[in-house]
């Protein structure tokens, strides 16, 4: 796990090859994270994978999140792992409404299904993905159920506290 100064060193090195790519860093509860510009996320991931001395060759997880009141609203999180030093690094790409980001399947083939799941649940479009279709929900499902503005769903249940609402 890179510590806070180590994270700043990584940021400085990325800044030489990809100027302006890293927007912010955070080191919270032992977890190092880089917040990157979504247009350059693929370049940063490639650099972390291939640059000498980095070697984050393993994508252990890719997932999305919806921080609704905040703006930009969506986050795509890449959890990278250096398997020699057993160091983990999180890369966050923030996206606003109508989210689109480049697919990283060419770098990490494991991302194929995980990007499909992020698309299924959050409607995040991954440009260049070989087969961006729904993976868990039925093909004809309408809506992105894990978004925060999606209704919780189901049916209203009649409890004593709300029985007056329905007559």
């Amino acid at each position, binding site marked *: 796990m890179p510590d806070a100064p180590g994270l700043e060193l990584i940021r400085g090195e990325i800044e030489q090859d990809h100027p302006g790519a890293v927007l912010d860093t955070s080191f919270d509860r032992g977890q190092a994270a880089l917040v990157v510009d979504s247009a350059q996320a693929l370049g940063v991931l490639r650099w972390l994978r291939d640059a000498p001395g980095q070697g984050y060759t393993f994508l252990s997880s890719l997932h999305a999140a919806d921080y609704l009141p905040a703006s930009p609203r969506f986050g795509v999180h890449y959890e990278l792992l250096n398997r020699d030093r057993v160091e983990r690094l999180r890369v966050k790409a923030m996206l606003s409404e109508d989210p689109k980001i480049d697919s990283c399947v060419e770098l990490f083939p494991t991302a194929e299904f995980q990007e499909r799941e992020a698309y299924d649940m959050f409607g995040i479009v991954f440009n260049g993905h070989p087969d961006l279709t729904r993976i868990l929900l039925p093909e004809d499902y309408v809506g992105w159920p894990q978004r925060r503005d999606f209704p919780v*769903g189901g049916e209203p249940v009649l409890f004593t506290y709300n029985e007056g609402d329905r007559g």
Partner: protein
Amino acid sequence: MRDRQLRARDMLRGDLEGEELERYVEERVVMTNFDKMLNWARSNSMFPLTFGLACCAIEAPISLVTARYDLARFGAEALRASPRQADFIILSGRVSIKMAPVVRRLYDQMLEPKWAISMGACSSSGGMFSNYAVVQGADKFMPIDLHIPGCPPRPEAVLYGFTKLQRKIQGNPDPGWRQRYNAAGTEEWARGGPRSAPSAEALAAYEAARELVNA
């Protein structure tokens, strides 16, 4: 016992005559109609579909055929792997909206007469899964004959429910709580349409129960 054996022997020898013969026949012959006999045979030889949806499947189809609960006692031990050969289906678990068309197809593939048991809170009402992925009650997309409450119901509860289904097949459905609360006539039998009149047997059973309570 010995007496009856001797009389059976006399009967076979042709020694029984007159009043004796009348009583012998009366004791051993049951008059009924063909429908009742057919339903009696049906209810005691049910083929369940080998089918599980979620965690309730551990309690019902899997536990019930083990030696401890032994569904064979009720004549339903022959689990069929094909819906074409099955008589009833137990919906054991939540039905997701992606699974619902599959369940409906399985039910449609079963041959008449067929029955369906909705087991547990999830398949009856959606249970704790009030969300985008789960159908809120399986009777939204297929007819259900019997609901068994519980999360999950114990295997004994499923057996009890199965005996109720047997009574329903025999045309004598259990009035259950309606006996206690004087609510005869409020039944919604799935096969007779909503709010249809209860069968003569059910009414008779209800009247008998009410007399017992009032006495």
